[in-house]
Structure formats: structure tokens, C-alpha cells
């Protein structure tokens, strides 16, 4: 790989109780590129994504083996501050999930929990983040109204603004457009293209065209195993594995 590695995943196994869902995953995620995770439902791609910011920790009875090294540090080491990790590795979820608060407070939440009080700084960062998420023009005159009044697509861009506001280095996206209409989806995809200038992006998607459009690298998962990982163009034009070819040509999944 000719790009700098942001995250190195080494021999990762993952269990829900007795049930193994990820088998020996080895994968290097390049810095400031978009890496797409594709595969049929239940292949473990979302679980894998949630390993990267340790969101799986919330589920009782999980077990993780192997290493995930972010900037030289294994994030599963004892003594890693999970709260710090999550402000370095932001996440956008499948369903837009703004808080039942105002548009402004949604984006400012990351600063509130860090105890930052500087009003000018927060105002400025909220504005910049909404700009980055391509939402500023639509909401600048109603920042104090409830975020729940926005459309689905706007809500999802608000969630992106909220995630980028705290300046993470990595942005995880779990099927961020799957609940949106084609126009809103297009906006999110254009946004991803902009955001990769600043962030390392890992995106889970069901939609292969979407992976082909937005991702620089694509990883194909099947039954908890990483089948193939390569530049997106290689995956879609000349896959090396038969399973990958079967999947992308629509023979199953």
C-alpha cells in the first residue's frame, strides 16, 4: 500500500458470547482515504466497524482477540482511555440520530461534554462544522429550533456535523445513507468526497455502486472473514477471489 497507514488491524477475532463473528481479520486502513466495507447482511462488517471505536464495549459478553493499532497504539490495550479514543474516532450511524435538542446544541454537544465554555470558540466551531457538512445554508437562520424538525437527509448531515465538530481523525460511517432518498444520498456521498481531505473515513455500505463511487479502497467481508481487500477499482474490475466476483456481480447477497 502506497499510503500512510492510519489503522492496522492484526489477527482480530471477535465473539458475542460463544458465538464467533469475526475470524482473523488483517487489514490496514490508509490515512485520509475512504475505505468501504462491503458484504452481505450478517457478514460482520458492522461489528468490525464498531471494533474501531470500541462501541462494542457497550454490549455485555463480548470478547476481542488481536490488535487494532491506531497511530502506533493498540486501542484494546489496558489503560487506553476509551472516552479519548472515541473523540479521536468519530461515528455516524445508519439511522440519523440527532439528540432531541436544538440544531446548535447538537453540534455543540461534543464541546459541552469536554467542559469547554468559551462561547466564541463554540459558535465558530458549530458554524464551521455545519459548513463542512453542507448544512449551514439551510439552517443558519434557525439554529435554535429542534433538530427533530429537519428532514432525514438534513438530520444525517447534522449528525456528520456533530461528529466532525470535535475534530476527530477517523470518521466511521455505518451505512450512513441507507435510510435516505436518492437525492439526500447523493449529498452525503459528495460530502464524503470533501471530508476525506481532512479525515480517514471507514464506511460500511450495502450499496455496491456507492462503494464504487466513494471509496478509494474496498474490503469484502463474508461470514466473518475478510475475503479480499484492495483498491476499489481492482475489487470491482478484477477481483482476485471467486467469492468477491460472485458478490459484486450479484450472484448472491
Amino acid at each position, binding site marked *: 500500500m502506497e499510503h500512510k497507514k492510519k489503522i492496522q488491524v492484526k489477527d482480530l477475532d471477535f465473539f458475542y458470547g460463544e458465538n464467533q463473528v469475526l475470524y482473523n481479520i488483517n487489514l490496514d486502513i490508509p490515512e485520509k482515504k475512504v475505505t468501504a466495507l462491503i458484504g452481505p447482511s450478517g457478514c460482520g462488517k458492522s461489528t468490525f466497524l464498531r471494533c474501531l471505536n470500541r462501541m462494542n464495549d457497550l454490549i455485555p459478553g463480548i470478547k476481542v482477540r488481536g490488535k487494532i493499532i491506531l497511530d502506533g497504539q493498540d486501542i484494546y490495550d489496558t489503560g487506553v482511555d476509551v472516552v479519548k479514543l472515541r473523540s479521536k474516532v468519530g461515528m455516524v450511524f445508519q439511522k440519523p440520530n440527532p439528540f432531541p435538542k436544538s440544531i446548535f446544541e447538537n453540534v455543540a454537544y*461534543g464541546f459541552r461534554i469536554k467542559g469547554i465554555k468559551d462561547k466564541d470558540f463554540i459558535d465558530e466551531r458549530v458554524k464551521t462544522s455545519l459548513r463542512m457538512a453542507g448544512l449551514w445554508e439551510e439552517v443558519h437562520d434557525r439554529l435554535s429550533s429542534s433538530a427533530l424538525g429537519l428532514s432525514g437527509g438534513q438530520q444525517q448531515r447534522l449528525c456528520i456535523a456533530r461528529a466532525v465538530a470535535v475534530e476527530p481523525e477517523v470518521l466511521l460511517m455505518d451505512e450512513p445513507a441507507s435510510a435516505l432518498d436518492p437525492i439526500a444520498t447523493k449529498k452525503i456521498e459528495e460530502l464524503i468526497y470533501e471530508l476525506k481531505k481532512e479525515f480517514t473515513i471507514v464506511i460500511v455500505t450495502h450499496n455496491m455502486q456507492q462503494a464504487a463511487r466513494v471509496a478509494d479502497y474496498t474490503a469484502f467481508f463474508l461470514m466473518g472473514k475478510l475475503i479480499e481487500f484492495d483498491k476499489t477499482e481492482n475489487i470491482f474490475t478484477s477481483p482476485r477471489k471467486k467469492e468477491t466476483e460472485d458478490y459484486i456481480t450479484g450472484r448472491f447477497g
Partner: protein
Amino acid sequence: MDIKKIKENIVFWVIKSAAFLNLLALTIFLFFLVKNGISAISWKFLVLPPRDMMTKGGIMPCIVGTLVLSLGSIIVSLPLGVGAAIYLCEYAKQGKMLRIIRLGINNLAGVPSIVFGLFGLAFFATYLHFKVSILTGILTLGLLSLPVIIGTSEEAIRSVPDTYKEASIALGATKWQTIYKIILPSAIPGIMTGVILSISRVAGETAAIMYTAAVFYSPHLPTSIFQPVMALPYHIYVLATAGTNIDKTRPLQYGTALVLVGLIFLMNFIAIMIRSKKQAKN
């Protein structure tokens, strides 16, 4: 007509008449209370203390007493109850211990209020030397309303979507920050429902306060929480069973009952207003 349709009709009528009967009972009850009690109600009745062996005058000390006792009990049970609910929902590990705690809470809800009264007398009044006082009454009523507050708070906390919690955690919030800034604000309308329920229960509570807080007659308002008070439900009980002239005070009894019901409606109304204001903000 086929048998299914007949069944459907019967069920519909049974359910409809059950609802109608309920409404009818409530209407008759209110009508009865208003008809007999309205003649006693006047401005003086509300703002003056009783006089002439409680056969004349007003019920002001009882109104104040009931307000102090019910609001005080909420001050005790709300933080304790919400705290317990947070622990049970967010921190406690599933298992035997949690089941035992739940069982305890559910059983507490079924304990008759006279037993709470006796406990209050034995523990707060006697053992802790709080005597028969507002404080003893508030603590006893607080315990009495705890299961309701815990139950409704738990339900309210559980009904906050997990997606809010995930979003907050993913932004680097700690568990407590997530509870305090996201979960509790979303759960407040539900918690307020518990507050409304327990205010209604506590304001009308007689057995739990007769040994712990209420006094037969007091010409003055209490000046501290270490003194006893008069209270509306106990006053009704006293006038109706142990008064100096039971028949003569009949209108006063109905009047007092009417004021008590009115007061409960009023407190519920205020709580509902607070709740819907909170809901509108979301």
C-alpha cells in the same frame, strides 16, 4: 349473521359499557361531593383556621399541611427514586441481585399504608426522635411513594431510544454525561407522570400520617419541620368519626373532601403543565 360477528359485537358492548360505567361512577361521585360540599366553601373557609371545637371556621392549616406533606415527600422520593431507577437501568448487572431488588420494590408497592405509618412511628418518630412531625410524615410518605417513582422512572429511562445513547457515547461522552445530558432530559416527561401519580396518592393518604405527622387540632401553623401539622384527609376522618358534633359538621366534612379533591386536581394539573412544556421543548 355469523357467529364471529356476534361475538365481536358482544365484546364491543361489554368493553364500551365498562368504560361508560367508570365514567358514570366518577361523575356521580363528583356530583355528590359538589352538591353536599359546595355550601361550605367560601373564601373564609379556605383562609381561616377552624374554631369552636372545629365546628366553625376554615381549614387553612389543613390545606397548608397537606401541601407541605405531599410536596415534601416528593422532594424525598424523587431523587432517591430516580437514582434507584438509573442504577437499575444503566448500572446494575442482570442477575440474581437485580431480581431480588426488583422483587423488593414490587413488594414495597403492595405494602398497606398503615404499615408504612407504623414503621414511620417506630423508626423516624421514636427511634430517630423526630417525634410526630412534618419531617417524620414527609419521610414516611416519601418511602410510600418510592415504588411508584422508581417504576415510572425506570420505564421512562428505558423508553429513551438507544440511538441517543450510542450517539452520545460515540462522541466521547462518559456514561454519566450521557445519563445526565441525554437520557434524563428525554425521560423527564415520563418521570413527571410518576410524580403526578404519587402526589395524588400521597395527598390523600391518611393511615400513613395519622401516627407520624398529623395532629387532631392545632390553632397555629407549624413554624418548623419538627412540628406536627393538620392535614386534609385526617381532618375529614376526625370530623366524621371523632368530632364534637358529627352531624353539625357534615357540610364541613364534604367541604373539606371537596377541597382535597380540588387540591389534588390542581397539583396534577400543574405537574401535567410542566410535563407538556418539557415535551414541547423536545
